[in-house]
């Protein structure tokens, strides 16, 4: 299900707003994932606070959004852009790739929450496809 030109336009357009709020959006998406889907907490046992107020969650949330911004800026070669991150997730972090769908969902929820007028059904579709491609690229090096 490759990204059409329309999809890419939609993703770039909403991301131009999202990238400016990287820390807040990232913290929200991450905190919501940890709270609503408790199995995901197993990867963060070294965090003292998993709430949206946590400094650790803010730092890590920003990293996630910044990495996605990089993917958006290289939307024609997401695999290439995320190659190093894929290696890291595969060999160091070893996050079960089933979890990528969960964080993708909370990212979409946060985009809808912060940008309700911009997050139309077509933009929602484009972002869902984009995050699926990101998830696939992240899992590339696993085996």
């Amino acid at each position: 299900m490759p990204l059409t030109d329309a999809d890419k336009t939609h993703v770039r357009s909403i991301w131009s707003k999202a990238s400016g709020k990287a820390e807040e959006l990232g913290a929200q998406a991450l905190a919501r994932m940890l709270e609503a889907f408790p199995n995901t907490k197993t990867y963060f046992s070294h965090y003292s606070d998993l709430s949206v107020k946590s400094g650790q969650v803010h730092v890590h949330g920003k990293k996630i959004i910044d990495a996605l911004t990089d993917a958006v800026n290289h939307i024609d070669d997401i695999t290439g852009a995320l190659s190093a991150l894929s290696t890291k997730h595969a060999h160091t972090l070893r996050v079960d790739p089933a979890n990528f769908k969960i964080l993708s969902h909370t990212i979409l929820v946060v985009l809808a929450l912060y940008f309700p007028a911009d997050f139309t059904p077509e933009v929602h579709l484009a972002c869902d496809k984009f995050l699926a491609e990101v998830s696939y690229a992240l899992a590339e090096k696993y085996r």
Partner: protein
Amino acid sequence: MVHWTDQERHAITTLWAKVNVEEVGAQALVRLLVVYPWTQRYFASFGNISNAAAIAGNAKVHAHGKTVLKSVGDAIAHMDDLSHAFTKLSKFHSETLHVDPDNFKHFGDCLSIVLAATFGTAYTPDVHAAWQKMIAVIISALSKQYH
């Protein structure tokens, strides 16, 4: 039987009281049909659902969205015994409608997203988590009679 904390019950029922069933239902169903277009297979009798604009303007989609959200309301009213309360509805989805239960999750995702867009910051992480749990319980009850 599902264990609900007082906080979860409060989060779910308080938000539900503010939901415009027709509006939220329509928006969620529109998103299901646009974002997961293979779900259109279940709605061949709805007329023109060939593109996003047609889907958004389709009266049958709107009406059905309201029907589905009303059932969500029923689920909330029976949240302590939902598997039992939804026996008939589950059988109906399995034996009459032949809906792949994977689609329940897609609808649930769309509903959570529409609630976020509608309620904004009032859809706090706590409220969001309670609703994801409610959605998971509904999906489980709806899936129960499949065989």
